[in-house]
């Protein structure tokens, strides 16, 4: 009984339809909630570069969103630092929606580079820091993060890193605040105005207080650290056109005020 091919095929077809409906239905219902959760997560990460992690953790989702709304403005630039308003297909570009990981697969000159500007409440003109997304490869899989630069466009205000599959306790430490705090106050340009980036060193426990372009390493995670170094250097170079144009702009402003 129940062994005829017709029975098996009918049974399988009905089962497939029922399960398929169930899944597509649930994804329809949960879709908006999921997009909201993703948006919140992205905004939290961006804010993480300028706001203390503990403080951010205590905020409710709505508070994070309204804080983001009042303190962050964003734009998208190309490799030459020119603002991009519309995508190739004509739709408007939203910086929060730009997938840095997907852009990473394109040639650097075709990518879109989002910039998030942290400003005083309600006043987009009074900039406090520039937040740049960075993306690269760790030891096992992708790593990414955000670098916040002070208004001199060289001093690092703060960084936040995230990873997909780095080794827990070793490479995964890039997400911990004691590693990220090592970057605070370092400079990405040298005195002659050339991009130097900041390099995490091999080995751990040395003091790099006096060196503006070096930070202490993570013991046992040199490959992840190299990935972080490469990621920072690459992206700071991609953004260098924007950074220099912004710097030039600042100088003319100063002249104008004088």
């Amino acid at each position, binding site marked *: 009984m129940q*062994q005829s091919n017709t029975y098996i095929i009918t049974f*399988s077809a009905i089962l497939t339809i029922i*399960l398929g409906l169930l*899944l597509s239905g649930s994804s329809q219902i949960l879709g908006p909630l999921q997009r909201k959760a*993703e948006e919140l*997560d992205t905004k939290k990460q961006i804010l993480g570069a300028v706001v203390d992690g503990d403080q951010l953790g205590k905020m409710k989702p709505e508070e994070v969103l309204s804080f983001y709304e009042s303190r962050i403005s964003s734009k998208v630039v190309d490799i030459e630092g020119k603002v991009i308003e519309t995508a190739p297909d004509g739709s408007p570009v939203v910086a929060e929606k730009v997938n840095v990981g997907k852009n990473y697969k394109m040639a650097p000159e075709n990518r879109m580079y989002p910039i998030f500007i942290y400003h005083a409440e309600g006043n987009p003109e009074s900039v406090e820091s520039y937040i740049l997304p960075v993306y690269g490869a760790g030891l096992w899989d992708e790593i990414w993060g955000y670098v916040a630069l002070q208004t001199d466009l060289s001093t690092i205000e703060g960084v936040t890193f995230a990873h*997909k599959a780095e080794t827990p*306790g070793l490479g995964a430490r890039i997400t911990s605040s004691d590693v990220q705090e090592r970057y605070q106050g370092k400079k990405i340009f040298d005195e002659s105005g050339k991009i130097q980036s900041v390099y995490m060193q091999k080995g751990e426990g040395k003091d790099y207080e006096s060196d503006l372009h070096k930070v202490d390493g993570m013991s046992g995670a040199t490959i992840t650290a190299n990935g972080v170094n490469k990621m920072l250097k690459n992206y700071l170079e991609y953004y260098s056109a924007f950074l220099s144009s912004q710097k030039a702009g600042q100088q003319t402003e100063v002249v104008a005020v004088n």
Partner: protein
Amino acid sequence: MSTETTAIEVKKPAEALLSKRRKGLVTDPLVDSNPVTIQVLGICSALAVTTQMQPTLIMAISVTFVVVMSNIVISLMRNTIPTRVRIIVQLAVVATLVTLVSELLKAFAYDMYKELSVFVGLIITNCIVMGRLEAFALGNKPYDSMLDGLGSSLGYSWIILAVAFFRELFGSGSIFGIKIFDAIAGLFGEDFSLATNGLMVTPVGAFIILGLIIWVQRTKTGYVEH
């Protein structure tokens, strides 16, 4: 897959809702036939997700939901499932439930969704799920199947929670993210500090803890493998 097949005679008069046999369905897998420590099933996830208590708890709840629900569904369908495609049918039901769990986590607990990432999806391949379906739900009524699923998943849950407790305590010095080691060190003054053990956050730590749990358990129950 499970090594034991359970066949249970259903008595004619209505059985008490929690008869001795039914209680046994829930309590046996907790210690005597524990899916992790005795049957050695579901080890992969026991190693992968147990670095911290919170994701482990979410994982335990997810596995419990999937095992119980799939046991009920398969048991309800047991007389209509064609024998030749039963494995695929079981797989389809399990995969659907797991996808549902994953979607729910993504909507309501995004942080946990990111943390557990692939391991929620891999519940599909957790041998405990398919093992219980093959060994029990295909031949028993829904209520008994539900109890059986509950027993097995609770047996799995308490083991991974125990492993996670020791791994988080010794590896990160905290429990559910609360810094226990720092608090203890604080009692003894400034110079005193407790070091965390990096080995515990690697899968090796999970093997060691799991081995110790199995050792203690077998010493107490006198279980010997034949």
